[in-house]
């Protein structure tokens, strides 16, 4: 089957069985390797991408269900060479990146959060990140970065 959707703003076609995980389509057909295959069971969040602006686990998302929708991945945020987004920049500024394998997923979760919430505090950020496992950082600096990126900066 062939499914048409927008990927980082461009219309694309995926010709593949409908139950193929969106993650496989992104990585194997479109060369977008930012989203990671961390667990393949929808639990680690390292494959998080946005479908119609909401975070989803791309490893559990059947490609049939992206037909007609808008998919955004980490590669679609800051163009190569262009400045980082506030979320990306804050993660580096606050030391929220270690091995970084979870980070593309974290970036997408926080991007969606900041787009929907005008002011993010630490509790909101922690709640939003429940589906993104980070084994390195203990989350503290990621949460600080989320708060800072939302422009509040008054809570950590």
């Amino acid at each position, binding site marked *: 089957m062939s499914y048409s959707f927008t990927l980082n703003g461009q219309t694309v076609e995926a010709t593949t*069985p409908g139950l193929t995980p969106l993650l*496989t389509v992104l990585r194997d057909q479109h060369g977008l390797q930012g989203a990671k295959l961390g667990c*393949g069971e929808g639990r680690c969040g390292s494959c*998080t991408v946005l*479908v119609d602006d909401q*975070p989803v*686990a791309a490893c559990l*998302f*059947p490609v049939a269900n992206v037909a007609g929708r808008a998919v955004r991945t980490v590669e679609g945020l800051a163009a190569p060479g262009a400045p980082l987004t506030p979320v990306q920049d804050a993660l580096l500024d606050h030391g929220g990146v270690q091995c970084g394998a979870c980070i593309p997923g974290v970036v997408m979760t926080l991007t969606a959060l900041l787009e929907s919430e005008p002011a993010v505090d630490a509790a909101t950020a922690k709640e939003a990140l429940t589906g993104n496992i980070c084994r390195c950082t203990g989350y503290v600096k990621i949460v600080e970065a989320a708060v800072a990126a939302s422009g509040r900066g008054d809570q950590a």
Partner: protein
Amino acid sequence: MLTTVVSPDVRSPGSIDDAVRQLTDLGADAMPLAGGTWIMRAGLRGETPRRCYVSLDRIAELRRYSVGDVVELGAQLTHRDLTSITTGPAATALRQAAALSAFPQVRNVATLAGNIAATGFAAADLVPALLAGQAEVELAGPEGPHRTTLASYLTSRDQRPSGELITAVRLPAPPGRFSAFERLTVRVGGEYAVANVAVSVDVDAGGSVHDARIAVGAVEPVATLGPARALIGHPVGDDDAAQAAGEAVAAGLTPREDPDAPGWYRVAVVPTLVRRAVAQLPQLIDH
């Protein structure tokens, strides 16, 4: 883990009638596909996938809802959708269940009907909230639309006829009805509940409970209603009555054993969850 070859066919009809027709034609080889968060893990559970899935994603009418004396909720509403629909206190438990379940990446995708229809999914969070609220499911099938109680649907969930589809859920919301939901996890959140409990009560003008229902999920293979008599005749929120009711409910449970949690523990925490749910109710009334 992902396999590189995913062979099942997926069809994406645009109407309920087309979906029923396709499911009927394909018979046992097919099943409906909603958000996919359960079906996409079939392989991890050691299940053989069906030959075909009928995606409900393009059927707009399955996302409708209406709010009144009965809250009508389309089958394809996601957990996230359910948290944002303004409903009265009869549906508080459902909203809470939807908000506390799993984590955002799943709540944004997993659907109301998927939560009900997923066979083998003992820890579904919406189900006890709906059971306690005396919900009914609207079904479409080869014999046309019909309606049944959620309780009776669940008892026959493994043997539903081919071609059948949940189209909506009806949750009664009469005046004076209040509900609350509690779940317990090993970590603070982001995982299946060890036990989840919903309490729904009907309160008279004097603040006394005149009817009540308690539902428990995750403890047994399928969520069930337990005896709630101990709440009746007591002021809403009464802790002793809640403890008695919780113990009565726990006494009737035969827990499953699985690696998530020992069975004895699932039962042991039920009275506490009942008490905590009941304790929420007076605040809802005050609002």
